């Protein structure tokens, strides 16, 4: 189905319900992973994911089809996640970086994390990166999003994204090599 046709179905009250179910089925898992990689905690991810779908639904009329539905939804999810983590950090009088460090420190006790020592070390390595590099690394390495798509989601050129990922990988390899 053409994307334009699908968007029309989403906007038409008669077909809206079915079209939205398809949107939920197609996007809930990838968007969950994307949000979880940013906010780290499962319950927080659930809240942000719900808010994301609600925002998508409420703003469908404003979606002009200039970008792909996929990029538009990822952009909303990214903004919602960053806003959420900043708000949560502010509430506990921490920086978002300090908050994420605390969550990563407690990953072993998290019932929704079954990673081993290397996975925890990788999360710690990511935290040493600047925020934008963290996001680029996670989207490329864990989510395997193509640079072209990432470019439309984050509004950054493909070249800049590649450079950012390259730098991130270098720093992570140094961190991972250390004891």
């Amino acid at each position, binding site marked *: 189905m053409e994307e334009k046709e699908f968007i029309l179905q989403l906007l038409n*009250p008669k077909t809206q*319900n079915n079209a*939205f*179910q398809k949107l*939920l*089925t197609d996007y*809930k*898992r990838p968007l*969950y*992973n994307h949000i*979880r*990689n940013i906010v*780290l905690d*499962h319950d927080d991810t*659930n809240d942000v*994911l*719900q808010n994301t*779908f*609600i925002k998508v*639904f409420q703003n469908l009329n404003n979606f002009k089809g200039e970008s792909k539905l996929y990029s538009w939804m990822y952009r909303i999810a990214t903004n919602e996640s960053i806003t959420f983590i900043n708000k949560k950090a502010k509430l506990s009088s921490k920086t978002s970086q300090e908050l994420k460090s605390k969550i990563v420190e407690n*990953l072993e006790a998290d019932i*929704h*994390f*079954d*990673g*081993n020592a*290397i*996975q*925890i070390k*990788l*999360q710690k390595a990511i935290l040493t990166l600047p925020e934008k590099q963290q996001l680029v690394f996670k989207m490329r*390495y*864990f989510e395997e999003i193509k640079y072209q798509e990432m470019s439309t989601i984050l509004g950054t050129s493909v070249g800049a994204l590649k450079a950012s990922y390259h730098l991130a*990988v270098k720093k*992570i*390899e140094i961190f*991972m*090599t250390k*004891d």
Partner: protein
Amino acid sequence: MNEFKINKENKITSGFTTPEGYFDDFSIDTNNRIILPKSRIKVISINKKRWVTSVAAVLIIVLSITFFTKMEVSNSDDNVLMENYITNNSEISQYDLITLLDNKDIENLSVELNLNDPKMDEEFDNTNEIEFYLTE
């Protein structure tokens, strides 16, 4: 020490998991939050009904003013009615009243009657109906 090379290592996953059945529950929860409120529950706009509320409020105020004014008038009527009722239907007998009088009350009452007044004697002498008063 082995140098860590991200492209040479096996892919490292994030390690994040979800509770069992989470994604099915998620669809249900999200549908309840999005689809149901929009299409099945009829939302009545407060703005559209605002004039009805205003008229109702004015009516209540006007009716309450009339009601309370009437209440005051009927209150004074009630007092008269109540007095009459007590007078006519009271179970308090003369004997009950007497028991309530103390010595001081009795003294006050006796002051009113001066039986040794000479004017009174004179009046009795000149009146033929004295016998009537005595027998009454």
